[in-house]
């Protein structure tokens, strides 16, 4: 099965959150839920500190816990490209997806009493477009596409400090890590 996913170059990300906001805009989200979120990690001691960012949406895992745990089948993994997609009209708001995803990708939306998640903007992808977070990146640190093609183009790893053990769900993400994020 083909698998689509995101590539993220951590070394050139400036943490500007244009991706996070583009996602809010596309998904028309209120304050609170973030389908894509930029995390920051830091350490070291003055005058030699380090920090890095991690921009994460849904990783469209090969073994998605959210799909396995959704009691009403609202979340499915598409056969044609492996995108993990939630149908909000089926969601009953039980939050099992939010508890089971190690990446915190599904988000509970208080105002609706339902969950939602990064669906890889499949409606736009199906029209040949990128997810808006990718085209928003001012540093060109994000890309999206067939994972094997992304791997051939950039390399990268799905195992970085700050993310859970990739063995849990086999996430479809490739990251070029900063030195401090290498595992």
């Amino acid at each position, binding site marked *: 099965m083909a698998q689509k996913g995101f590539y993220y170059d951590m070394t050139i990300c400036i943490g500007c959150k244009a991706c996070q906001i583009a996602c809010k805009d596309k998904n028309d989200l209120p304050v*609170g839920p973030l389908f894509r979120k930029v995390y920051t990690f830091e350490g070291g001691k*003055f005058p030699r*500190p380090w*920090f890095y960012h991690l921009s994460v949406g849904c990783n469209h895992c090969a073994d998605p816990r959210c799909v396995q745990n959704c009691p009403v089948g609202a979340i499915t993994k598409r056969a044609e490209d492996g995108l993990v997609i939630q149908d909000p009209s089926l969601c009953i708001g039980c939050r099992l997806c939010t508890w089971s995803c190690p990446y915190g990708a599904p988000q509970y939306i208080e105002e609706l009493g339902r969950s*939602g998640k990064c669906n890889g903007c499949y409606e736009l992808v199906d029209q040949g477009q990128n997810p808006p977070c990718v085209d928003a990146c001012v540093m060109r640190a994000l890309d999206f596409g067939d994972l094997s093609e992304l791997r051939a183009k950039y390399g990268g790893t799905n195992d970085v400090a700050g993310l859970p053990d990739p063995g849990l769900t086999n996430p479809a993400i490739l990251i070029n890590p900063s030195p401090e994020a290498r595992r």
Partner: protein
Amino acid sequence: WPERRQASAETEGKWVTAACWHNCGGRCLNKALVKDGMVIRQKTDDTHPDSPDYPQQRACARGRSQRQQVLGADRLKYPMKRKHWEPGGGNKELRGRDEWVRISWDEALDIVASEIKRIKEKYGNESIMAFGSEIGRTLSLYGGYVSVWGSTSYGTWLETGPRIGLSSGNHVNDRMDMRKTQLLILWGANPAWSSAGLPTYNYLQVKKAGARVITIDPLFNETARVLADEWIPIRPGTDHALALGLAHTLLVEDDPETNPLIDWDFLHRCTVGFDKDHMPPGADPKENFKDYLLGTYDGQPKDAEWASEICGVKADRIRQLAREIGGTERVSLLVSWAPARGNNLDSWPQALMALGAMSGHMGRPGSMTGVCTHSGASNNGPSLVRAGGNGLPNIANPVKLRLNHNEHWTAVLEGKYMAGKGPGVTEPVNIQMIYHAGSSALNQKPGLVRGVAAHRKVEFVVAHHYALNTSAKYADVVLPITTEWERAGTLLSGNREILIWAQHVIDPLFEAKSDMWIAVELAKRLGLNAEEVCPISEEQQLFNRLAGAQVLKEDGKTWEKLLTITAEDIAEMGVEGEPQTGRITLAEFREKGIYQVPRRPGDNYEYVHLAEFRQDPEKHPLNTTSGKLEIYCQAIADHVRNCGWSEISPIPKYNRPTEGYEDTFADWEKKIKGDYPLQLYTIHYPRRSHSVFDNVPWLREAFPQEFIMNPVDAEARGIKDGDIVKISSRHGTVIRPVYLTERIMPGVVTLGEGAWADIDDETGIDKAGATNTLNGAIPTGQGHAGWNTCNVQVERYDGPLPPDHTWPQRVIF
């Protein structure tokens, strides 16, 4: 929501180029998907394939949030007046805390016009202080108004830069040329935050081309993280000392034969004032820069040890940096304006220029020294595409009285101001009306606490705005205005390669009107000729700018019209004009919303600043007294003296800043700290462009306006990460959540400028953390704002402070 989400994924509707008109320095392309008169989604530049040479103009988080700015629940919907307002003000202390009452436009305009008339007749035009452009036309026709002057963004570059032979703004090489540099030094610059959009990406290309990158900054910032091979932490307001320490090292270590660090040829041919043999006529030969560096007459060499004590960079590191600057063939020594935004820093630009001149990094490919910031960040040189004029004639303001922004609130309160006629010469003034036309002056000028008192003293305050910003909050009458999205359209320029045609996106919301409409309606009520205020319609102004737009041909020398405009285009726009032929059609420009000049390395648009001057300074003199770069500059010394607050030397001697590092000590010699032991400097923060966007919920969520300090300073005060802290200066108090990080230099703290002040009248505490609550209005030098010199104390605050994004929006109707 599922339905709305479905709608927002649609590609139906019309993509319209929407103005991102803000003053951040970036100028990016924003598009709005308009359906049924509403904006349902945004996107950025996709008008051509993206590449480093010909990049898309991608928007930042702020631009991407704009529909929450324009369509926010807190938009001002109707004209409002303060409930207890009465002619003359009534209980003026209620400003900022009174209830609001909705009124009609007729009533609102009648009130404003009658107060203008009453105050003019009672106190004269010199009692009306106004901020804003269109309303200035009406007030000028009605006898004039008091305006406000002073350098804000530019710091001391504004007046010092041109007099010493550089300029106030951007004056280095272009982005293609910059890729030839071997050593890129970014000094006090964080374009990742302050000019979001393209600049950091452009600098990344310089790094990829092989440059080593050093950043000099109190904070290991976002730009540094991505680009820097090395970070040199420095105390705010002490950059001048570092420059002198570097210059001293160059001087004492240079040997033209064995260790050439100084470009003597450039120094001798192109500058005046470096040594006693190259002084301008009439100058005391002893007052030369070389002898000042060596301490020949004052006994204090400005060596690395001397500089280190002030700036906090180790002496060995200063010497090493000097060797690297002097010993590298092609260096870009780039500063933002920020290091010049401090009290008494009038000589800093000259010290930097002297350093660049000594090392010869000027006027050569890949080699440059100076300001590279805001719209010129990463890319300088003349514009390659430019708009025409709007055709609107200027209206002169008959009132010549101008108040400096470090004095205008005090002038209201105390009735006097410094007249610019030399030290100590003040004159009386009686301000009784403050007119904010789309301004954020109360929030964005130094001395906010005094500013609030000033607003509660005068007889009338009026504000135009689209939301209840700080200026509007303390007004008697607020008038709702349209944003650029609701107007006829405009042309926006930014970096040298682009021209954006932002278009009408949606109709005016509620009862919002344009600033010009208000100016015209007031003119009618004041018995003026409205035709004179606005003789040209907004559509015609737009057309004039389009028809006059020009683009530089590929030869890099000749200009051609940008647009082909047909008789049908003119008829469709409903304007007057002549058909013309240009590079692209009006329809294509409208469709794309942008014209971007294609670039490639080696094209004829590459720009090397001061190249001709360097080659032949006699044939291509600078616009200075001597025609050369002035390391000795009588003109700037005279200008500062005439402003009346302080004095400087014609050569760039170090001036101790008011509320700089030295002032954190009660006893500098014994190094005993005083009551305000920490240095606060105020950064551009990604939540906002200055004060604009501070009210946008998505941005409040993304950027929480934390107070940034080092764990060492926190531990000494029993402060833990995430605590609420109280920050006090000599001028005011704010509370904020604290973010502890090893990325900031101990002894230095920082807070983003531009938060909308939220002051509790009982305690005086500003819970929003507006930096001007902490910054005093301290007039020095050329009257520039001194935002990066401020002393504070910090303690834990035991009260609650909910996160900003949970605060209710300022909805008053």
